[in-house]
């Protein structure tokens, strides 16, 4: 393949070395990727599938990665895309309504956190896939707006707008902020 607009002189790894290098990188980043997918999708089985899809996709395009130090960001972008595809396809999947019957939490979890969980579960479900990704990448993965823009492939202004709308909805679901009321 003729490479257009890329710097020359890149080092080609032998096939076997490349497989080993990829396997090592994938293994190293697996836990973080799976956990991120789990938080985005809210389903551990689907998180497994999305992570596996992302690894396959990453391997297929591993030759295009110029800088191994960028693997994590590059792979995270692929994973985020895989999760977004799954969120979008859910519109076509049968949905089973689960009755919201809060159980008494174990392990010291108080009623407020149960209320929070239910409220946020419901509010999160009303967000579109792009808003969900923005929320998870900001509040779970602790990425900056610019980093989220990089992972999701949209301008920073778009990320800000998505975050603004999504957090407003989540805040609204949580009800009045007692801190602010003081």
């Amino acid at each position, binding site marked *: 393949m003729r490479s257009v607009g890329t710097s020359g002189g890149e080092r080609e790894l032998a096939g076997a070395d*490349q497989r080993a290098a990829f396997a090592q990188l*994938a293994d190293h980043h697996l836990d973080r990727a*799976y956990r991120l997918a789990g938080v985005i999708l809210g389903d551990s089985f689907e998180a*497994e599938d999305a992570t596996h899809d992302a690894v396959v996709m990453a391997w297929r395009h591993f030759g295009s990665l110029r800088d191994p130090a960028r693997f994590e960001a590059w792979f995270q972008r692929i994973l985020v895309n895989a999760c977004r595809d799954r969120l979008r396809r859910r519109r076509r999947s049968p949905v089973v309504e689960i009755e919201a019957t809060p159980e008494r939490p174990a392990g010291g979890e108080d009623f407020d956190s149960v209320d929070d969980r239910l409220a946020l579960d419901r509010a999160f479900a009303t967000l579109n896939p792009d808003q969900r990704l923005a929320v998870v990448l900001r509040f779970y993965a602790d990425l900056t707006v610019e980093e989220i823009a990089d992972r999701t492939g949209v301008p920073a202004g*778009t990320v800000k*707008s998505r975050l603004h709308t999504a957090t407003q909805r989540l805040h609204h679901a949580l009800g009045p*902020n007692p801190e602010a009321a003081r």
Partner: protein
Amino acid sequence: MTDLSPDDRIRTWLLARDPGEAPETLRTSVTRVPYDVRRPAIARLAERRLPSAVPSASPLTRFAAWRSLGAVVVLALLLIGLVLGVLLVAGSAPRVPPPFGRAANGNVAYAAEGDLYTVDLVTGRSQAIVTGPETDTDPVWSLDGSRLVFRRSIVGEPGERLFVARADGSGIVLITPEPLSSIAGYAFSPDGRRIVVVSGLTGDVTIANSDGTGLRTLDVSFGGCVFANGCEPSFRPPDGAEIVLVGGANSRLYVVDATDSRVRILAVAPEGGGVIAPRWSPDGALIAYGRWQSARALTIQTHIVAADGTGDRVLEAPPGAMWNGRPVWSNDGTRLAIVRGYGPGHERDVLAVVSAPAGGRGIETAPSVFDQPIDIPPIEWAPDDTSILLTPFTAGRPDHQVFVDALTGRASRTPWATDSRPAWQRLAP
């Protein structure tokens, strides 16, 4: 718990969704991937046309000419019959519009909940044309309005495949048997016989015949396009000899010869900036595209450049406009529809119709047309150039599309809701 700020309560809730370490089965299968999954061939050679055998000229024999007068008469009669037959067939075939220039308005195609619909704008009646358990989206009309290309995904399968259907949804043909990832866009050639699609993180360019044959990947890599909107490839009018593409992670515009894959760089983005959404003028002489200076705020401006890459200049924007991008030519080539912002984000977005290539303020819609947009919308002119159809990407997708009167800027929402790109059928005038 309630002592925490709302943001911290969100963080706590998200941490509770964390499934923990990856299960061992996943770890085992993931580390096997590079050994079990065959990587695609890096390049598929472009189809080569083998030199066809040139038939040797038959020598004239002494039995020809005057002695075959009877045969000549028979041949003439056959020819006359053939011509009459062709005229009859041509007379009964549906009239189609030319691929460029103004045409009559046909149906709008759109996707909703994974199915494809067309809506008759005269009666206002929507009709499902492609349905089923698959998720079908983003229909794009051929330039003669006879067919649609769209993408399809299936739950549980990675990637998407392209299909072509007739305007009524019948005769569905698979175009890309292997699933494609990260499809940036696709388009019909002017004669409707080919389809170009850009996909993958590296920007693979694939051309296929619209009857499902002749799939080939061009011998080039463009480094991909990072945006989901504004990276559609398109064939150059009038003959489709070249294709303009965004590549290098939105750092360059390329023009590639559709036959021999020769590549030339049309425009290079400034450091830290980018390029997006190139569109050929209907006569194929110019390309309008968007270029920005910084990813931190919207600074996109419309540029117009000659097809050979010379004369690149910024389209004049009105005072106060902080960005002025995503240009789309009218079918007669005299105007551009542009999305314009009077703030660094999407706070005060308007759609503007300006004369081309002069630019200026032109006619603007009210900012309310976009209703909390989260991205610059894809837009398409009506085939007769009287109005513009756009899909606002708002916070609560899917949303209604919006018609904008190209002369007054008045806007109205469509009765149907969709998140697919606008697609308006061209019909013979």
